[in-house]
């Protein structure tokens, strides 16, 4: 079991666990945070699979902007409830 | 002067149209007319993009099959844009992008490029359906459309991993060279399901009821006739050339499609809302068209798509305009719609009779010919099912026409302005003329080579 196999096994299992948690999370905020953790793991697996271009793009877009958009939607909704 | 202008010019004008919001609809009509003129000037052939030929770069391919599709798409978009200028001017740039997406979808020969244009026309369709002011239905359409194109990409990538190329013609030669059919069953089913979502085939089209159920004079005809026609053309080319259906896969696909025909017509039979009747009948028609492509009857499938698109445009425009003025969609509230606008009534009746397949109209000739071709292929069961479906179709369309013509007590005031009437008359006349004058069907020969994706020089 080379080092690469061990790391890819850990990343693979983590991917599945976090995806399951993201789908069945009770609160929306938890589900969004799990999604952002999932896209960070995707960046790790892209680096493992020797795809640097895609890793940079996924890092900036996936965990950066997509999570931000999700959180802005949830914040604007919570503001309406408190009004 | 290459076929690329059909995609590049609408894109360029769309990018510029956001700077001048007011002129977007007029630019749309200008570009539409430009495309129609271009279609008569362009010769058939393969167009190379980016300077690298087929295995490395992307090619477009223009032949008689895609020429008919492009004429239909661009013509109908110009007509729909002309009728909806005042009310939906804001959607000018979106319709431009939809036109670019659909033209690219029909022209491209590269599979991943096909996925990108499927995504462009898909997102444009979500926004067109957003004009219905029903966010939940638009969201369901977006969710299902995204699932469909992801499944298509999944199947496409498996094919790339196996055969190492993305170009359709190279893929076809590689698949025929590797005669082990069990390898390609999984990618073909994934891609068929992926396209089935957009092409409204039955088990995957739960979005149709919501989106077309409360459509308006712009989104109804656009999604029901233009998008349906484009995707039927494209699905047909893939079914005929790429997906070689055999054995169990063929029976599964035929069962799905025949179930689609019967269930679609039964749902239309049992629904009370006029627009639901129309959308379920177009679901049944889409399944019939896909069935014809699976059995290799190309010519009549193409003419069925064209006739269906024209008559559905007329029907959806008439009903959506009436529903907008009256507000309610039930058939009993539209009773007696045609008593005080006779011309519109005649055009609607001709279109409905053509969809049913009544003599003296285009629908009759097409239905007769494709049934005889099916008989030649010995598909007795399919003919029985299609005849039963047409019987059900006849019943609910005649019931609808009776309601719309003979008014009860209530008085309906729906006014169609002149431009609507002009379009209805032209389309109805086209259905009538081509119903009786059958020369063009023989002169324009559509045989197996037409959906060829490489120019067999």
């Amino acid at each position, binding site marked *: 079991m080379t080092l690469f196999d061990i790391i890819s096994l850990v990343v693979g299992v983590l991917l599945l666990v976090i995806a399951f948690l993201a789908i069945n999370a009770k609160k929306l905020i938890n589900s969004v945070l799990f999604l952002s953790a999932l896209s960070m793991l995707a960046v790790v697996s892209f680096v493992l699979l020797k795809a640097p271009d895609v890793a940079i793009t996924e890092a900036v877009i996936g965990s*950066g902007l997509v999570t931000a958009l999700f959180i802005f939607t949830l914040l604007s909704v919570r503001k309406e409830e408190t009004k | 002067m290459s076929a690329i202008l059909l995609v590049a010019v609408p*894109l360029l004008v769309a990018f510029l149209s956001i700077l001048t919001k007011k002129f977007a609809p007029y630019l749309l009509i200008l570009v539409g007319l430009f495309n129609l003129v271009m279609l008569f000037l362009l010769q058939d052939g393969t167009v190379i993009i980016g300077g690298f030929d087929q295995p490395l770069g992307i090619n477009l391919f223009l032949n008689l099959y895609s020429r008919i599709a492009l004429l239909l798409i661009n013509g109908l978009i110009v007509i729909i844009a002309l009728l909806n200028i005042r009310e939906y001017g804001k959607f000018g740039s979106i319709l431009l992008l939809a036109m670019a997406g659909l033209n690219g979808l029909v022209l491209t020969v590269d599979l991943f490029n096909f996925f*990108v244009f499927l995504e462009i026309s898909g997102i444009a369709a979500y926004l067109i359906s957003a004009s219905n002011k029903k966010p939940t239905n638009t969201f369901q359409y977006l969710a299902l459309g995204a699932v469909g194109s992801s499944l298509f990409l999944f199947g496409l990538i498996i094919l790339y991993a196996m055969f190492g*190329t993305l170009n359709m013609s190279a893929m076809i030669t590689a698949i025929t060279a590797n005669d082990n059919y069990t390898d390609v069953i999984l990618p073909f089913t994934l891609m068929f399901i992926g396209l089935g979502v957009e092409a409204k085939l039955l088990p995957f089209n739960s979005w149709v009821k919501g989106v077309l159920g409360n459509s308006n004079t712009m989104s109804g005809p656009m999604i029901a006739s233009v998008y349906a026609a484009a995707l039927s053309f494209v699905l047909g080319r893939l079914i005929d050339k790429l997906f070689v259906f055999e054995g169990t896969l063929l029976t599964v696909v035929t069962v799905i499609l025949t179930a689609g025909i019967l269930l679609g017509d039964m749902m239309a039979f049992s629904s009370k809302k006029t627009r639901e009747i129309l959308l379920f009948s177009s679901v049944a028609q889409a399944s019939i068209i896909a069935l014809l492509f699976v059995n290799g009857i190309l010519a009549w499938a193409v003419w069925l798509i064209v006739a269906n698109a024209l008559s559905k445009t007329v029907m959806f425009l008439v009903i959506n305009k009436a529903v907008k003025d009256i507000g309610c969609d039930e058939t009993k509230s539209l009773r007696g719609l045609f008593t005080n606008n006779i011309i519109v009534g005649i055009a609607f009746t001709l279109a409905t009779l053509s969809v049913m397949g009544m003599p003296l109209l285009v629908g009759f000739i097409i239905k007769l010919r494709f049934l005889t071709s099916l008989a030649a292929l010995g598909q007795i069961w399919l003919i029985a099912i299609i005849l039963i479906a047409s019987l059900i179709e006849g019943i609910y369309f005649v019931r609808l026409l009776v309601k719309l013509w003979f008014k009860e007590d209530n008085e309906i005031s729906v006014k169609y302005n002149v431009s609507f009437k002009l379009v209805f008359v032209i389309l109805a006349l086209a259905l009538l003329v081509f119903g009786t004058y059958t020369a063009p069907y023989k002169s324009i020969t559509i045989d197996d080579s037409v959906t060829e994706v490489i120019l067999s020089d």
Partner: protein
Amino acid sequence: MKIKNLFGLLLSLVLGVFIILAMNNSEIFPAFGEANIAGRVSQDYFADANVAEVGSANIVTAIVIGYRGFDTLGEVTVLFISALGVAIIFGGKKQSRLDLQFKPNFMLRVGSRVLFGIILVTSFYIIFHGHLTPGGGFPGGAIIASAVLLLYLADDRFRSNVKGFKILEGVAGSLFVIIGLLGLVLATYFLQNFLPVGTVGDLLSAGIIPVIYVLIGLKVGSEISGIVDNFLTEEGSA
């Protein structure tokens, strides 16, 4: 855990295992890790003649712009439609910022201006070196958008110049298509490279690839900033 979820989970696992098995026992589907590019189209991307003709050291960029530029044009249109769609769905006159009950102090507001400059420099670096090192138009543009996002978060009265971004977006997009049409007019094919290619590996090489990547970077940056602006503002009085 309701029974429905458990049943759905099992069903999806069965479907996943079925797909994996279906692919494992087909012998022409390459196993994980043995993808030899000899049998595939991408073998020719490394051929010296093609590398010299396109001139980009980063082969992925050569494919994204040089060989398959039409895909990228289509994909930039996808982002253009979603920015347009978000603007249409939100509609309405947008004046006031969404107040998120978060009052930034003075230090944060000034500090974020400094950081904004630094992030912009890194994003331009990534865009300009797109054809040499990993990165390029898409991540570069997204980093510009995250710099604008930083200003939005750090300062609750900040409103980016939305009109300016719209014009930049329209101009960058149409310039991309015009370069394609120039390729059609000057050279013989749409999006063909008509600039000198230079030697592989130095900054000013690979013909139209850096020019197109700068345009894509500006367009992606302005589009995503427009989307962020739409998400962070609401109607309401000025």
